[in-house]
């Protein structure tokens, strides 16, 4: 059987660079197969996907990608679903979104509704075509994007980090859809650095290393041992005496008056590690924003350090990292970025310099001090953002899934770092994320949120 795609000795370097981003790739994908390429953040996985789809800017290319069936409009019958569904949704209604590809292929408008309905059925999205895309959950948005590629009848679908944005329930539904499509002969290429969530559909594993070299891989389960991160913070004498966060019957409502979460009780003592799990849209981000004082409670009480949260009064005591923390970088060098909060909190001269050096070394980015933060890799930017928050020695750290999409080794580095700070400096951490497996056993207190309620907790 002819492969859908044959990649032979393919290497690529971006324009104006001499270093190859990916090197000597050899890969055949047969109809109905699902291949998975794993590798650390920044190893060139997305670049490979864009190369197969033909979306890379003209650069230094070697080798060949063949078997790709070119369509008469200059496109290819390959679909590529990129990482963030939010950015890929271009229309305001489901029907218009799925039809976007058909519009580009100049399909007769009269035939569009039937094709759109078929694509919606294929991904199990049972919503009317005029349904607003903004009202979908993250998992539903991902399946919508999938449908918007399926409607163009691709032979190969490339999915870039499908597990990165989705909660376990969304992922389960996606796996079912992929399995059904595989049975119809459609091929898949997944780029995923945590493939353990997707094992049941994968036929072959590959690995791209940090230098862009490609080789046959295998499923590598996470070997992270939470017990290596020290004993939980509550084990320390006196740790539970001082309340850092307390919330009683806390309710926050959205703009339309309906509750985002309601009647929530929460008590966090100094030095505790807390994780808040829950599917996308459960209210985790709003909870953290409420604790930080940026969202007002519509009922109930919340106290941080024994007082009502007011952002201006919490500066210096609370550190906050939201999703995509690299967005907050603005200085010219990594050193200045980390020094910024220290200057603002009144540190000067050698005291400031030594604190910056200490923080950079603690985050293992001491060698990047003179570099521009904007030119660093995705993973390095995350570490700089974290260092710039930790430099101020916050007592409470609020994390809203800031490290989603980072590879296992960087996640482990961050977990170990936070564990050390928790042990040595009594740092209290409240971490919201949507994959309970990621940090299982790390926290002293685990909450599970669903539809605006805490449905379970363990300690």
């Amino acid at each position, binding site marked *: 059987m002819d492969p859908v795609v044959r990649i032979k000795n393919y290497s690529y370097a971006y324009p104006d660079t001499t270093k190859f981003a990916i090197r000597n790739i050899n890969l055949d994908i047969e109809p109905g197969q699902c291949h998975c390429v794993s590798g650390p953040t920044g190893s060139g996985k997305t670049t490979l996907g864009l190369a197969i789809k033909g979306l890379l800017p003209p650069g230094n290319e070697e080798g060949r990608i063949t078997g790709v069936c070119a369509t008469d*409009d200059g496109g290819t019958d390959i679909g590529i679903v990129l990482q963030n569904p939010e950015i890929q949704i271009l229309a305001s209604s489901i029907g218009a979104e799925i039809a976007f590809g058909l519009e580009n292929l100049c399909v007769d408008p009269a035939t569009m509704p039937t094709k759109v309905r078929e694509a919606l059925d294929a991904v199990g999205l049972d919503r*009317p075509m005029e349904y607003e895309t903004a009202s979908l959950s993250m998992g539903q948005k991902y399946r919508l994007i999938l449908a918007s590629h399926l409607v163009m009848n691709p032979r190969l679908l490339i999915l870039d980090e499908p597990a990165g944005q989705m909660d376990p329930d969304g992922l389960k539904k996606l796996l079912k859809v992929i399995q059904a499509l595989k049975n119809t002969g459609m091929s898949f290429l997944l780029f995923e650095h945590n493939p353990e969530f997707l094992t049941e559909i994968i036929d072959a594993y590959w690995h791209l290393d940090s230098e862009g070299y490609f080789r046959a891989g295998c499923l590598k389960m996470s070997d992270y041992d939470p017990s290596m991160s020290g004993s939980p913070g509550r084990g320390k004498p006196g740790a539970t005496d001082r309340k850092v966060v307390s919330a009683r019957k806390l309710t926050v409502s959205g703009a339309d008056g309906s509750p985002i979460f309601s009647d929530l009780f929460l008590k966090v003592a100094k030095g505790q590690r807390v994780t808040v799990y829950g599917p996308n849209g459960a209210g985790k981000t709003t909870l953290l924003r409420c604790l930080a004082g940026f969202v007002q409670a519509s009922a109930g009480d919340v106290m941080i350090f024994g007082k009502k949260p007011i952002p201006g009064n919490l500066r210096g005591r609370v550190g906050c990292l939201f999703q995509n923390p690299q967005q907050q970088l603005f200085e010219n060098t990594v050193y200045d970025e980390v020094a910024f909060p220290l200057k603002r909190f009144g540190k000067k001269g050698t005291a400031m310099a030594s604190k910056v050096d200490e923080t950079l070394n603690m985050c293992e980015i001491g060698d990047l001090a003179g570099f521009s933060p904007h030119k660093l890799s995705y993973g390095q930017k995350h570490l700089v953002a974290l260092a710039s928050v930790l430099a101020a020695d916050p007592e409470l750290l609020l994390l809203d899934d800031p490290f989603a999409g980072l590879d296992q080794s960087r996640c482990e580095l961050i977990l170990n770092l936070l564990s050390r700070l928790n042990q040595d400096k009594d740092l209290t951490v409240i971490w919201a994320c949507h994959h309970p497996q990621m940090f299982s056993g790390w926290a002293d207190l685990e909450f599970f949120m669903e539809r605006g309620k805490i449905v379970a907790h363990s300690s």
Partner: protein
Amino acid sequence: MRIRLRQLFGFLRRFKDWPGTEHRRAGSIAVGAKLLGLMALSFLAFGSRTTTGLLWLTVINLALLLVFRYGFIFLRREIKVFLWQTAIIVSLYMLRFGWIDGFKQGAMISWQLSLAYMPGVIFIKTTPQPRIVETFSAVAPYRAAFVMATCFKFIPLILTEIRNIYEGQVFRGAKILRRDLLNPCNWPDLVFCLALPVIIRSMNLAGEITLAAKARNFGFKKKRTCWPGI
């Protein structure tokens, strides 16, 4: 009279969600006419110098919200912006022209600005995106039409990104809270800690949206068809 009014409202509502596949050209003309009408209202707001004129325009804008069945409650964000804008403009005018004159002039200017802005909001919120693209495509290259229509769609996403950056920077020590900004010495923080990252993020976002559109073969053909709507 009542029947005529009902007919007129029915005709205007057709502009809201034009469904027809057989009347597509007429649909584009209707959206185009709606756009021109609302633009004229916007220009009139700049031209009106009297309270009576502005009152009339306010009544017309409110009537249009009613006609297009767009709930006033969905304009909370716009109302908030209007109140902030009024507070800032009136304060500055009062500083420059004194309490009474400053208040009068500032309030008029703020009212005018809001009435100039309102028709645009009504158009965006009551016209389906495919219809906007289709209408713009009739007078501009479809790439330009797509950019115009897509820009509006991503405004909420950009606002969320701005909020995230803002809140993160506050805890890093940036003096950008409302009370901090009363002191002009803190204004550079607003530029460097918020505006600069937002500009960088917006440029990245534009690149990512382009890539997402190209991934679905946008721009490969010289023409494109349009989703008929349901």
